[in-house]
């Protein structure tokens, strides 16, 4: 659905993007992660035909962003990281204006505006002036605006920035709903736990270079050495640690807050055999879980490597 090939953008002597390539298949939520200034916004602006790349090509639903900007705009909804709203317009008029800019006939615009306000939970604010809405509500309205022409692809630049936790959860629910509707979504963010839960694919970018890209768990596995287990036992903790250390698949064992955290090399079957080894030795295991959230480790590892 989205294909980026060797995208390079040079501003004077500064290389903002250096041969970035990735693909996002239809229906995926692609998390675009990187520190500030890594090139996330530059990539998204090129994808939205708002910026010209120095070299490389990019396609949205088969349309070339440089040669067919009209087709791209037709298929893509874009929500920038920072945006203003017009004064003196109500939420309904705001959406109606953008729907008109997409040449949607007047008869359909009223229904589209009402449906979208319902989708983003702003139905009761339809007649409120947009400049009086809170930041969270403006973000939601802007998301609704990006959807007025029912695009197949959504580009969201930091959609959760500046939102309180509740607004963030609500935004996440809306995005999940949009994924169920079959939209392909690209989100740039640096709030990592949120992306782990929401995204199906991820790309880590740093200093203009793509450090890793692919399905979330694959990227984490690729970048973090081994997986982690948290094990709780009833007494005989030292014995349990000794058993774990003796196993060939275990790499490190730590005690954290009374629980054992073990890093191991292998897959789910290896984890099952570790549990068997403990219970087989008569250890009472009260908790045994694989640790999620390795994205943070993966991100730190990917962005700390000096590729130069």
């Amino acid at each position, binding site marked *: 659905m989205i294909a980026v090939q060797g995208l*390079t953008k*040079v501003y004077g002597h500064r290389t903002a993007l250096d041969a970035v390539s990735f693909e996002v298949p239809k229906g995926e939520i692609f998390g675009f992660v990187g520190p500030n200034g890594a090139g996330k916004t530059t990539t998204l*602006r090129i994808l*939205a*035909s*708002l*910026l*010209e790349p*120095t*070299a490389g090509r990019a396609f949205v639903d088969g349309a070339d962003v*440089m040669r067919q*900007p*009209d087709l791209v*705009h*037709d298929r*893509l909804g*874009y929500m*920038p990281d*920072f*945006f*203003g*709203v*017009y*004064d*003196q*317009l109500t939420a309904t*008029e705001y959406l109606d*204006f*953008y729907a*008109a*800019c*997409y*040449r949607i006939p007047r008869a359909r615009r009223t229904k589209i505006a009402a449906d979208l306000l319902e989708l983003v939970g702003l139905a009761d604010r339809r007649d409120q002036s947009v400049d009086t809405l809170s930041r969270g509500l403006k973000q939601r309205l802007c998301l609704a*605006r990006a959807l007025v022409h029912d695009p197949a692809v959504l580009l969201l630049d930091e959609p959760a920035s500046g939102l309180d936790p509740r607004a963030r959860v609500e935004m996440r629910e809306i995005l999940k709903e949009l994924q169920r509707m079959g939209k392909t979504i690209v989100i740039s963010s640096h709030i990592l736990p949120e992306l782990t839960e929401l995204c199906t694919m991820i790309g880590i970018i740093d200093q203009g270079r793509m450090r890793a890209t692919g399905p979330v768990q694959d990227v984490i596995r690729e970048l973090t050495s081994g997986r982690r287990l948290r094990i709780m036992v009833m007494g005989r903790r030292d014995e349990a640690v000794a058993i774990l250390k003796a196993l060939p698949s275990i790499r490190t064992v730590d005690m954290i807050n009374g629980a054992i955290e073990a890093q191991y090399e292998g897959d789910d079957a290896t984890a099952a055999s570790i549990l068997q080894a403990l219970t087989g030795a008569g250890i009472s295991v009260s908790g045994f879980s694989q640790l999620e959230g390795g994205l943070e480790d993966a991100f730190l590892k990917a962005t700390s490597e000096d590729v130069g």
Partner: protein
Amino acid sequence: MNRVAVALWNPIVAKEYRSRMRTWRSPVAMTVYILLLGGLGWAIFSAMSASARNVFSGSPANYGQALFLSLVIFQMVLLAFITPALTAGAISSERERQTIDLLFVTKLPSFSILWGKLLASMSFVFLLLLLSVPIFSLVFLFGGIELDQVLAAFLVTAVAALTLGVIGIACSTAFRRTLPATVAAYGASFILLAGSLLYGLLFPTSIDPNATAAPAPPAVSYLSPLLPLITIGTSQPVTWYGIGSGFSSGGGGGMMCSGTPGGGQQCVPLYANGKGVASPIYRNPPQPTGATIPSGLFAGWQYWQATVTLQLLISLAALVLSVILIPPTRHLPWQRRTRAAAGGS
């Protein structure tokens, strides 16, 4: 709707109308405009009534002409202040609010964004012009001014305002921030209104005593709408401005000439030492009639026709410049070469 209608009428116009008319600024601006113009009209009207009661001097037609002249020039100056303020922020404020990208990703072509902004701003200026019509009808109480003069004056004012508007839009497109755009737009208006007249003062047309046509101010000075407004109001050709005294080397000693108030020339033969003789020679070249330009680039045109043509040309140039500058990914010839070189390396 056909393609032309789609390009000319677009949602930006409707949105701009709506948000402009919902603020308190618009009615206040209209009221202040009418009060200023009406105040001037009333002041001149009362001064004339007072002087007509005391001394019988001049005819009501002269009063009408003086009132009309004052009003059209004051209206032009007012619009020169208002129009840049309306248009200089049109594009740059969208950039500052970061709303312009949201427009660029829609199906609206860049030209429609420009056109919509221009149409919305100019509609307000034309509304102000329309509001001033009842004040101008005062002139007809005195007579001395015909309807076609009023129409010509309004045409010149409207075209000049349009030019200032398009220049404002071009400045707004060229500068990223509203403040420099506004300063540049006011600078351009000043040059257009006063700078062009200054040119005529600094570089007046030299008088050629052998010319068969009466002298006229240099063509650059027709850029200013003030010149045609004065000629429309007075129905007289311009003889008091932009025509200097000149030297001619014909006939051995040469002559020094200068314009006379009647539009003729007065030439004084010169001796070798440059001192003129006591008795000047009066020449009487063909007299300009009505408000027609007697000579130069626009010979035979009405003053207002020359001004309107020049202003429309400037508007067109400014509009083309804006269309080139506004798109987020613009393709200028040298940029295309750079990109091709970078892409190929």
